[in-house]
């Protein structure tokens, strides 16, 4: 189910089922449809790299539109990557960025879930805290980055704090929603089976809010990567953001593209991993997804 959803992100499950039903009475038809869509997907990527490669070769050797230094070919970027990987420099930057993201995200996840749960449970607390959160939330976290550097210095603390701040909001908001809107009939059912308030919280409210909380965590993880690059532009001597910004100073366009590509690859891998984890944790939802 999950694999299918990844392959056909545009189709809702209900629609894709309907399509599958009208399109193919037999399995071989469905298989053929899947093969075509896979082929198109591969072609999309192949076309992207072909155009990139073509433009950069054409510009370097046939018609010179702009300085060839500005657009290295995919092969040059790959070569730079191999060289930097061999020297261990690439790994150092990846580890630096990842560890900041994990720390910042971890802090945001813990605080977001705890604060979100507390607010979702208590109306008084919600009235007390929510206006402030709603005031801060629309301000792009980047607006606070220079301040974070002033407050926490140019070391690791400012970057971790910055990521934690940015990632806190999605976790917090989705947790509050999840806790607040637990189906009251489930709470009644548990109470009539003899559960205490405490047991209702652990065995009903928290599991019922889990899908929401997981969505918030996945959004927050993506956001952490989003902001770490900016943080590393400003004050850092390591990390993928630093790699890109440092390369700019020396006009090493291959290094800049390499940094961006590595961030993209990490993002895709992390997202696939988190979605797998989510669909495993929420395996009870699997069958109901297509139903009305």
């Amino acid at each position, binding site marked *: 189910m999950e694999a299918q959803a990844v392959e056909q992100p545009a189709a809702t499950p209900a629609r894709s089922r309907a399509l599958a039903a009208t399109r193919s009475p037999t399995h071989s038809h469905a298989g053929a449809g899947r093969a075509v869509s896979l082929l198109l997907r591969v072609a999309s990527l192949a076309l992207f790299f072909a155009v990139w490669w073509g433009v950069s070769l054409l510009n370097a050797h046939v018609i010179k539109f702009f300085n060839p230094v500005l657009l290295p070919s995919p092969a040059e970027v790959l070569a730079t990557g191999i060289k930097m990987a061999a020297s261990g420099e690439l790994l150092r930057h990846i580890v630096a960025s990842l560890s900041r993201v994990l720390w910042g995200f971890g802090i945001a996840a813990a605080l977001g879930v705890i604060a979100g749960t507390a607010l979702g449970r208590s109306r008084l607390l919600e009235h007390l805290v929510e206006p402030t959160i709603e005031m801060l939330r629309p301000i792009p976290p980047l607006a606070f980055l220079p301040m974070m550097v002033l407050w926490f210095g140019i070391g690791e603390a400012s970057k971790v704090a910055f990521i934690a701040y940015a990632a806190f909001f999605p976790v917090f908001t989705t947790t509050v929603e999840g806790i607040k809107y637990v*189906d009251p*009939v*489930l709470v*009644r*059912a*548990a*109470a*009539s*089976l*003899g*559960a205490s308030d405490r*047991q209702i919280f652990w*065995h*009903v409210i928290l*599991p*019922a809010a*889990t899908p929401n909380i997981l969505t918030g965590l996945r959004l927050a993880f993506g956001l952490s990567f989003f902001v770490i690059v900016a943080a590393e532009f400003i004050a850092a001597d390591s990390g993928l953001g630093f790699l890109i910004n440092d390369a700019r100073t020396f006009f090493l366009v291959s290094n800049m593209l390499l940094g961006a590509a590595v961030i993209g690859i990490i993002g895709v891998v992390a997202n696939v991993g988190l979605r797998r984890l989510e669909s495993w944790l*929420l*395996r*009870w*939802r*699997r*069958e*109901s997804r297509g*139903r009305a």
Partner: protein
Amino acid sequence: MTSIRLEAVSKSYTPGSLALEAVSLELAENSFTCLLGPSGCGKSTLLNMIAGFIEPTTGCVLVGGSEVTGAGADRGVVFQEYALFPWRTAAENVEFGPMIRRLPRAERHATASRYLSLVGLAGHEGKYPSELSGGMKQRVAIARALANHPSVLLMDEPFGALDAQTREVMQEELLRIWQQDKKTVVFVTHSISESIFLADRIVVMATRPGTIKEIVDVPLGHPRERSSPEFVALEREIKQLVREEVAKLGIM
């Protein structure tokens, strides 16, 4: 011996208007009572007060001689919307009560299998609610309520969302289970035929405010034949009572 006793119970949700007015009722132990009436007559309100989900504005509800102050394991509830925990399998749903009572794991498993086979769901232990049909979900919900050994079983239009065929099968199953495992059952419905098929006593409710219009004792033995003359005559009699109430609402 009285199992459930309502003493002049009134409920008002908004000041100045009563959803339920001075209802007094006694239900014998192990009796099967249907609360029947059109929507808005307060039958669900009454059930929710016996369950302890809502408090009466005035009057009191006694179950087994003691006043109801909140929900409790002595009163099992089956809801129209099933209210299964979607993240727990059928067996884990049935095990919820035993888990709350901290019974050993082996005993919980045994209880779950026993009650799931009682409701005809042996072999479906590991399925999640999302993999079950409406009728199967309601069977799990009934098993979950029974596995907790309540003395009272409260059912709020439990078969209202099921198709006609499934509904009749479930009614027969419920009677079979009730005859095996006697409880005081309070069953809310707006289906006249359902109430005659199931109940010893039918409490026909009046609307605006909700009060008891008439209590009809069903003199028929089980199993009941829906097409028998006695059944049809009773159906006609009760239909007349309910019609008057619906007419009062100005819907017809």
